[in-house]
């Protein structure tokens, strides 16, 4: 299964388990998360898939929910529930960091420039008010003393701000960015929002999703998570210890109106954001189309130099010239797209004309560029043809020399064969002459031996 299917499927499974917890019951949700943990950890050990390093981090997210469903108990005051959940979670994060062999600096626990971090941290103050107005959570204690507030602030700072940010922005965003690139920020923000399904408020969930994107962007831009840790802590502190008590002393009708306006504003922001993303996508697709037009002559030339096509090169060249001319005569694709869009969106005719003029100028530039490319590659082709003619001449000369040498070689072979035959004849004659001389010598010796007494 590819990473683009498997990881979103796991995120969807976590979302379903969260929705079950919010809508059906706690026990089925814990069971779902328990099954997910077993699957995620087993797949991490047993497979070597490219998205493998995301799996233990997703398991920690499920573990977070099991811990938060089981660890808090009624005998312990509310504010200490964060310690009961956060402490084991921090241990799990530390074990995962060790397993995946990360350094703490890689997770954003490094000192960066102070000013950007302080700016990010200060964003927590207005955001906490916005979060409070959207959710209106109940305060932990009716009127806590300074001691309770001090302990609460420290707990929220460590076990909410730090723990959640090290998990979502530090660990999850880091591994998701390793696997998905820049989309990793979206992945961690989505999962961050999913973990707030239990708040049972769509506006607050949307607020958290946007907050996650903002925090993710800040962490990736600054390379440090300290700013977002402080901002997240300020939000939690404000929503727990500040705004509920300020709210109690204010006109409730006015607060309700501000809250409703904020909710509308938030949804409007989302609509505008989606519109901008759509516009950017259209702009991007238009650019891609223009890029194809610019690259056309280069692709034509590349096809021309393929070895299999080199035999009928002149025909090919003619074909590509015709193809280029056809492209030039076609109505410009960008301007066509713009006109259709303009008609669909009911743009004023001036804007439409302006777009057409810009499109026409753009197409002229492209045509000029295309002609220049054509001239350049024609010159290149002529030079190549001359080189080929020169090489053919050299080949003919070499072939003639080879024929001459072959004839000389045959002549030498014939001469050597006749020499060998002559030598063999002479050798045979010589051996016969020697035999005859020996016979004569033996015959002359024999009468002398017979006449002696």
């Amino acid at each position, binding site marked *: 299964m590819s990473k683009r299917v498997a990881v979103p499927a796991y995120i969807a499974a976590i979302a379903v388990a969260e929705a079950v*917890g*919010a809508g059906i019951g*706690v*026990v089925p949700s*814990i*069971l779902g998360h*328990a099954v997910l*943990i*077993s699957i995620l*950890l087993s797949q*991490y*050990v*047993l497979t070597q898939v490219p998205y493998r390093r995301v799996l*233990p981090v997703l*398991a*920690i997210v499920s*573990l*977070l929910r*099991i*811990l*938060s*469903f*089981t*660890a*808090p*108990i*009624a*005998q312990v005051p*509310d504010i200490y*529930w*964060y310690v*009961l*959940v*956060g*402490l*084991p*979670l921090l*241990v*799990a994060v530390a*074990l*995962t960091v*060790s*397993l995946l062999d990360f350094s703490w600096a890689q997770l954003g626990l490094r000192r960066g420039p102070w000013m950007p971090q302080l700016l990010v941290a200060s964003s927590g103050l207005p955001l906490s008010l916005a979060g409070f107005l959207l*959710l209106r*959570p109940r305060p932990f204690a009716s009127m806590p003393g300074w001691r309770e507030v001090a302990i609460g602030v420290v707990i929220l700072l460590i*076990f*909410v701000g730090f*723990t*959640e940010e090290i998990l979502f922005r530090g660990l999850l965003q880091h591994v998701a960015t390793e696997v998905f690139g820049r989309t990793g920020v979206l992945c961690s923000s989505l999962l*961050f929002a999913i*973990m*707030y*399904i*239990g*708040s*049972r408020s769509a506006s*607050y969930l949307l607020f958290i999703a946007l907050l996650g994107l903002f925090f993710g962007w800040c962490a990736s831009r600054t390379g440090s998570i300290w700013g977002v840790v402080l901002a997240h802590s300020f939000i*939690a502190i404000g*929503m727990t210890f500040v705004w509920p008590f300020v709210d109690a002393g204010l006109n409730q009708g006015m607060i309700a109106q501000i809250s409703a306006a904020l909710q509308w504003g938030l949804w409007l922001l989302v609509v505008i954001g989606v519109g901008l993303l759509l516009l950017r996508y259209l702009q991007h697709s238009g650019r891609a189309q223009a890029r194809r037009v610019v690259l056309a002559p280069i692709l034509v030339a590349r096809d021309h130099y393929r070895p299999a096509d080199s035999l009928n090169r002149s025909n090919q060249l003619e074909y590509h010239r015709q193809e280029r001319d056809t492209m030039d005569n076609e109505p410009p694709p960008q301007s066509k797209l713009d006109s259709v869009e303009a008609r669909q969106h009911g743009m004023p005719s001036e804007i439409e004309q302006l777009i057409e003029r810009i499109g026409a100028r753009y197409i002229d530039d492209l045509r000029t560029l295309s002609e220049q490319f054509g001239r350049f590659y024609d010159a290149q082709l002529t030079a190549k043809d001359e080189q080929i003619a020169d090489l053919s001449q050299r080949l003919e000369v070499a072939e003639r020399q080879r024929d001459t040498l072959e004839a000389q070689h045959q002549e030498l072979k014939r001469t050597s064969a006749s020499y060998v035959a002559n030598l063999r004849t002479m050798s045979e004659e010589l051996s016969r002459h020697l035999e005859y001389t020996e016979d004569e010598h033996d015959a002359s010796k024999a009468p002398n031996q017979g006449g002696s007494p």
Partner: protein
Amino acid sequence: MTALVTDVIARAIASNTVDSLSTARSVVLILLLLGLLVLKELARAAGGPRSTAWTDTLNIAIVPLLLVFGFFVAINFLDLLS
């Protein structure tokens, strides 16, 4: 309201009048812990190159769950003493 303790969790705890270790959610926690511990022991007994990988990976879930379990036991023990 944070990801750690949501509204659903606060209501679930408020509605529970039974002791911590005997609630259904805690039973699931203990069963998960037992399952993971059994799996870890099986992996260790099987040996091989993957044994260490299994142990390190399962520890990510086992150690935090053991901490929570230890806390439950301590609370119950203190209740017994008092």
